């Protein structure tokens, strides 16, 4: 095992013999520790014929291991006040929890046991499958979920890994077997695809030492993934979904953007802040909420990822105001795209984003998420120190260029779900 100390946050990165990366950061505000074990096992890697396999694998992952029955895991975690979460995103599957520092060794053992040795008992697969189906039915009645899912479909198409529904479809979930889950785990949750981050009131060395013992002998060959395909050329698409009985309509309006490691990333990040984040929700909220009083929320979010992730604009409005709100979004997108931001907007947003870094890195949970992103994209352990420089270096021309490339209403995908 090799170890290197960082100059930034003071995190320590260790690569275990099997290839698992362990990053530990000691903090002292509370006598607690956050454990975040993340594998590159998100929905993007599931077979196109079984959408939702990553999601269901995550739902059953912590329901029994070779050494621990589901009930034993439940008892050991409940006894310590620990709520374990398994979250499956596009590229990652994360097992996270927070425990008291005094329980750290026991809880880390349980987390690593869950990650390495899940057995996916048939009875648990059946129960969690039924719960997933229930969640799909709930989503079907949720205008916000329907609008966002539809805009992803329009942007990427259902055959693209970003265009599929994360939870899958009723038909795919019904078809999944225990063997599918075992196979998916074996293929994607392996030492060379796993990063363990530990942040909290324990010595940094103890995480790597303990992980080395629990994960000893776990080896796997490196995995070479197909690149995420580029999205199809964009053109204006609109789809309206009727969901009876609802009081409000949800609008999702999106574009595909760039990859996380694209040199334009920081300019896009600043642009998104100006469009739909700064203050109540940037230019969008200023128009739709503040000037027109049409919506409680109007904002944008950007997610450059391994592939060309989306920029998504969201607003919830009275059904009678949908066209007015859509016109306001088109207007703001078009204005920012064609004229670009003002110098003041760029400098304000940069100041805000740089100033918000200490807040992002205040809690154990926040630091753990940050360090996982750093590892996933190879940003370097001193990234927290370099990030202000990256943001500071963004120029007005770069943000204008990003706006001109991205913000074209004639390329937007639009979904409206409501009564």
């Amino acid at each position: 095992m090799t170890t290197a100390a960082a100059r930034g946050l003071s995190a320590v990165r260790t690569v275990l013999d099997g290839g698992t990366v362990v990053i530990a950061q000691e903090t002292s505000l509370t006598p607690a520790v956050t454990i975040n074990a993340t594998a590159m096992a998100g929905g993007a890697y599931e077979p196109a014929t079984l959408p939702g396999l990553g999601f269901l694998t995550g739902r059953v992952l912590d329901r029994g291991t070779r050494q621990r029955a589901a009930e034993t895991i439940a008892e050991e975690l409940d006894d310590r006040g620990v709520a374990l979460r398994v979250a499956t995103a596009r590229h990652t599957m994360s097992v996270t929890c927070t425990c008291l520092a005094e329980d750290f060794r026991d809880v880390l053992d349980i987390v690593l046991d869950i990650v390495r040795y899940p057995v996916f008992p048939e009875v648990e697969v059946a129960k969690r499958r039924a719960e997933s189906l229930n969640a799909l039915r709930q989503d079907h009645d949720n205008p916000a979920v329907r609008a966002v899912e539809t805009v992803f479909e329009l942007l990427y198409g259902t055959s693209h890994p970003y265009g599929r529904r994360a939870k899958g479809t009723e038909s795919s979930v019904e078809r999944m077997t225990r063997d599918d889950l075992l196979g998916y785990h074996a293929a994607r949750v392996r030492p060379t695809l796993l990063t363990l981050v530990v942040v909290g009131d324990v010595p940094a060395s103890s995480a790597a030492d303990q992980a080395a013992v629990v994960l000893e002998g776990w080896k796997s060959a490196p995995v070479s993934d197909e690149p995420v395909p580029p999205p199809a050329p964009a053109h204006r698409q609109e789809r309206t979904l009727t969901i009876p009985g609802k009081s409000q309509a949800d609008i999702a309006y999106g574009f595909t953007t760039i990859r996380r490691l694209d040199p334009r990333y920081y300019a896009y990040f600043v642009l998104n802040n100006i469009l739909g984040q700064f203050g109540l929700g940037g230019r969008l909220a200023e128009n739709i909420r503040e000037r027109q009083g049409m919506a409680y929320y109007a904002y944008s979010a950007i997610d450059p990822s391994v592939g060309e992730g989306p920029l998504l604009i969201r607003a919830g409005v009275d059904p009678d105001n949908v066209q007015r709100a859509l016109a306001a979004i088109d207007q703001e997108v078009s204005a920012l795209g064609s004229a670009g931001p003002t110098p003041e907007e760029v400098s304000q947003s940069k100041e805000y984003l740089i100033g918000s870094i200490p807040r992002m890195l205040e809690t154990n949970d926040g630091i753990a998420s940050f360090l996982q992103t750093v590892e996933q994209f190879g940003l370097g352990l001193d990234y927290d120190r370099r990030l202000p420089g990256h943001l500071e270096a963004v120029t007005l021309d770069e943000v204008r260029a990003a706006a001109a490339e991205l913000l074209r209403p004639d390329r937007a995908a639009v979904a409206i779900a409501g009564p």
Partner: protein
Amino acid sequence: MRSVQAAAALSTRFTTLQNGLKVLIQEVHTAPLVSVWCWYRVGSRDEAPGRTGASHWVEHMNFKGTRNIPRDQMKGLVERYGGMWNGYTWIDETTYLETAGRNALDQLLFLEAERMANGLYEPEDCESERTVIISELQGSENDPDQLLDQEVTATAFRAHPYRHPTIGWLPDLRSMTRDDLYDHYRRYYIPNNATLVIAGDVEGDDVLRRVERTLGSIPAGTVPARTLIVEPPQLGERRVVVERPGTTSYLKMAWHAPAATDREFFPMLVLDAILTGAKGVNLWTSFRGAPPQRKSRLYTTLVERSLASSVAGALVPTAEPFLYTVSMTAMQGIELPVLEAAALEQIEKVREQGVSGEETARAVRQLRARFVFENDSVTNIAHQLGYFETVTGPGFFPDLQSQVTRVTADQVSEVARRRLASTARTVGWFKPRSDGA
């Protein structure tokens, strides 16, 4: 590694200015941040019929500009320091917060001083915010569980103003005027009805000087007397059925809960942990995400037996007796009477047979851990200090750990027997109609 007890022992500085403003300062030097929360002792319980939602609407208006901060400059004041800001209103309280770099402290105090004394309430801003709030209400109505919660709460209370939703009833939101809002603002936004909390990488004496300079000259007013309304005892089960288009059935049960300062509050908190898993007591952060609950009684009875896909309990510390609520999402094909019968069977079992020492000890351990987790930032620490000062008064927050540790299985059994009686419960059903999507 520090002990849980040592970490819980905060050394908060408490001062009351001459104008009556209470000031709580907590030095925390782990990050270069400061969190400022300004709390007002006004919530939806203080609203008269016809004026429901006034407190929440006033909260919205206090982001709209003041005599010395034009509306378009409110934005950017906190962001310049990398800060976040927000506010919320609930039944007992209204609060505003900013967390930013520590060098923002003067700006944050100035903002709170302006908010307390110099709100503009321009008529056009009131009108524009009316529709924003109606949109907020409509958004929450899109969620069947929230809609049911509103109906159950309104059914469980006959007399107490806790019965109406914090956001207000729609007809009141349509009819209230700018002057109604401004009157409400002027009545309650006075220093001697407020508590200011500052937590972060600051020095106590210096903070106090800055607070004196910025907020010390705001004149005191007459603190409005709170109307004391005692909810009469409930004499029998109440039921409400909401039928709407939808795909999923929801079940909610509510019982009258003890106020935070009632001696039964902590046994009830342990009872909730036994039934549905411990959440903690931080309204700002602890009710997001699932609690540790897989060994809890209702999870094992309902979710593990595939009758429900989720179960959640809610007991929040309040100034007067509010509700203990258990919410369930039915699995497809499970009729509401079946789910209700299974939930009530477990509730009756707890009432008749009591709880064990082992499960009480587990619940106490859970709560002890949750009290640590919910104080993991200057924002959360400041929230907890201000919340309990406003809702329960001094002395309650520092004593949380020891209070919960002293709870016995007998106390929990007794509180279950008395509080969860069938005659004192309200049951709500959300029945999806088949014309749903």
